[in-house]
């Protein structure tokens, strides 16, 4: 079977999570990289480590040291990507697999965040909280969101297509408003500042010292010396892998096949004996469960968050992740998440780097002069100041514009998203040296 990767001799072989050797190897490399990223392990400390390049003077001065991230500001962005990845896997089940377009994912994330906060948060005079350990509040957040999903789904099942999109969009506005009422404030806290969310620390019950600390520096299990950022990352990475496995498995079960049948032609699915109502309800509940978990993780990661963060913009972000990654595939969703979450940070650091170069010489200084505007009279589309009234735009606004434009460009030029690009590359090498 080694050279015939598309030959399947049984159904079990075809629905394997990783059907080919290439996929197994790639997945193994991916998992190892994912888990090694937070550790400060040097791959190449300097160009002198590379025997071939050592003697070329230009390169030996120019190559930056190549190493894993260690504890730095990029780790926070990756944490966010992992959390968003869990939520994106959820919307992939609802929109990608079952074909129900939802703009309400942020609402379900919010429901999860506040279910988790009430279960695990600390009670004060103004907000409720039961201070339960993480193994209750994190699943509780998912279940809370799933229950709300089940409550909403009878309305949603009656609607199709864009009607559904707009009703779920309405949910987002309703949700943000509900957090602003007198009873909502007991759950969500002050509308401007938000409330304190429970921390990741793993406790057996309500005791003082946690079983496994995640929010403080220190040794894990007596030997692994990691900082709090690294601990958070590892915790989220393991959860992310668990949820990838879950999402992969949903697609392989009877439920997954039923959902795909409903997506492809709902009435035909019903004729074949797939109960539409039941499976749409399951799709809503599962997707909301993922969203709820991600929402609770997101809120807890942020520490303190106003309810207005769970806005339409967040929902749109998930739709963008789905479309940029590739609708209906787990690997596409993962790629899309990293692309959408990391791009703004790349743009930001690139601009920061350019802004530092404005005074120097060489190509980068020339480029910086054209692109960055440091003050009045200095023409350039990007302003180096953080708050600038009017034009030129600052980096954050450019990131938003870029994000909108990226969505448009991807849909116009590559409707299958990053997954489509990957398929094209793969097929090119599969057929090489023949072009078709």
């Amino acid at each position, binding site marked *: 079977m080694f050279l015939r990767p598309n030959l399947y001799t049984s159904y079990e072989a075809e629905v394997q999570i990783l059907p080919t050797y290439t996929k197994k190897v790639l997945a193994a490399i991916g998992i190892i990289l994912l888990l090694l990223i937070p550790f400060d392990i040097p791959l190449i400390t300097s160009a002198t480590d590379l025997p071939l390049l050592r003697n070329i003077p230009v390169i030996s001065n120019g190559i930056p040291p190549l190493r894993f991230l260690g504890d730095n500001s990029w780790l926070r962005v990756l944490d966010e990507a992992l959390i968003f990845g869990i939520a994106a896997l959820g919307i992939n089940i609802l929109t990608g697999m079952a074909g129900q*377009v939802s703009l309400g994912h942020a609402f379900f994330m919010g429901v999860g965040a506040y279910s988790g906060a009430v279960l695990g948060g600390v009670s004060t005079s103004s907000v409720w909280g039961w201070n339960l350990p993480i193994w209750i509040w994190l699943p509780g957040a998912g279940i809370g969101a799933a229950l709300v999903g089940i409550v909403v789904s009878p*309305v949603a099942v*009656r*609607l*199709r*297509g*864009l*009607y559904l*999109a*707009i*009703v779920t*969009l*309405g*949910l987002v*506005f*309703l949700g943000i*408003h*509900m957090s*602003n*009422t*007198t*009873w*909502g404030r007991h759950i969500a806290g002050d509308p401007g500042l938000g409330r304190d969310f429970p921390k990741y620390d793993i406790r057996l019950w309500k005791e003082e010292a946690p079983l496994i600390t995640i929010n403080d520096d220190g040794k894990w299990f007596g030997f692994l010396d990691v900082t709090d950022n690294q601990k958070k990352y590892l915790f989220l990475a393991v959860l992310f892998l668990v949820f990838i496995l879950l999402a992969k498995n949903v697609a392989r079960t009877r439920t997954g096949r039923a959902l795909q049948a409903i997506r492809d*032609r*709902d*009435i*035909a699915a019903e*004729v074949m004996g797939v109960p539409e109502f039941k499976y749409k309800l399951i799709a809503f509940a599962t997707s909301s469960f993922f969203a709820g978990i991600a929402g609770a993780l997101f809120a807890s990661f942020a520490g303190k968050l106003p309810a207005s963060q769970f806005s*339409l*913009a967040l929902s*749109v972000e998930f*739709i*963008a992740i789905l*479309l940029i990654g590739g609708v209906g595939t787990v690997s596409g969703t993962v790629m899309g998440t990293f692309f959408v979450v990391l791009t703004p940070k790349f743009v930001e650091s690139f601009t920061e780097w350019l802004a530092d170069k404005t005074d120097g010489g060489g190509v980068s200084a020339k480029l910086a002069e054209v692109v960055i505007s440091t003050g009045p009279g200095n023409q350039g589309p990007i302003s180096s100041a953080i708050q600038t*009234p*009017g*034009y030129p*735009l600052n980096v954050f*606004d450019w990131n*938003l*514009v870029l*994000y*909108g*434009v*990226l*969505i*448009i460009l991807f*849909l*116009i030029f590559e*409707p299958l998203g990053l997954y489509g690009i990957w398929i094209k590359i793969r097929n090119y090498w599969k057929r090489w040296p023949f072009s078709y």
Partner: protein
Amino acid sequence: MAKLNFDASEPSHLVGLSIVVGGAIFSAYELATGADIYATTLLKSLALGSVYALIALGTVLIFKATEVINFAQGAMAMVGVLFISFMVADGNLPIVGFFWEIPNPIYELGGPEWIKWFLSVIVALVFAALLGLLIERLAIRPMIGEPLFSVAVITLGLEIALRVLANDTVKINFRSVDAPWGNGGFNIGDGFVNWSYFAAMITAAIAFVAVFFFYRSRMGIAMRAVAHDQEAAMAQGINIGRVFAIAWGAGAVLAAMGGLFATQPPVKQTGAVDTDVALVAFRALPAVILGGLDSVQGALLGGLIVGTAEIYAGQYLSGQTAWLGSGYPLIVPYFVMIIGLLVRPYGLFGTPEIRRV
């Protein structure tokens, strides 16, 4: 338009009947106890309904021609009202005005101020139409034949990009549209009625009559044919590209007109141009959905229902703010939409989708 055949076994009819009867009893009671407040509330709700109906009409026009629901209607409204603001408050032509300030030629002429204002607004609307054409050409035309969901998401991307650019033009500056009616108005008993209420109502009436007649013109018939069946229309020799362009141009103009009144009372008391305009357009989506995505009279009725519900809830439930939360009228449209869709999944006048295996 559906005939009024009442059927007691139909839940939607029962809901409709109970709303009409309940509304009549409530109106009679309020008219007897506080007729002046009731009258101003009614005018206010008609004005708000007109604003929603204008924006909803643009969405429906675009949907009918292109089957795309335009989430960027709010951003287009905001850019449109910025164009108006450039023309009348800064006295510059929009678009090019970002870089080279070209003075608005209309204000160089003589004549009464309000005529110059009116003409400037019309020129600004022409620029808004050009923006609509540009969007259609660059972002929508390449997507003909792609899944509708993708095109809807393209409009979401447009919404983000346009709104951020528009917001950066405003930021903390106070911008206005210098409306000739100002903040003036008159009192009915204890209630106050702004002139802008009537301006909004008249504009909406003109727009709906114009669309009504447009649908009977040659181009309008072509547009309805495209809405009915794109391929068949193409086979009949209808230029679909032109139909799309006209729909987007008209949608942008209607969005700008809606945006203009979204900066005026009753929506906004200060008359400031800011991102709230885009949020108003989002509240017009429930109006579209409630009336039915593909129905012009649905846009009007949906807009009026949503506007009425919002204003009446704001007026008569204000004692309950404690548990409803401040700003509760702003979510009434979504609430009304969800209730309405439970009863009629395709809105009041929407065409049910025929499902085939």
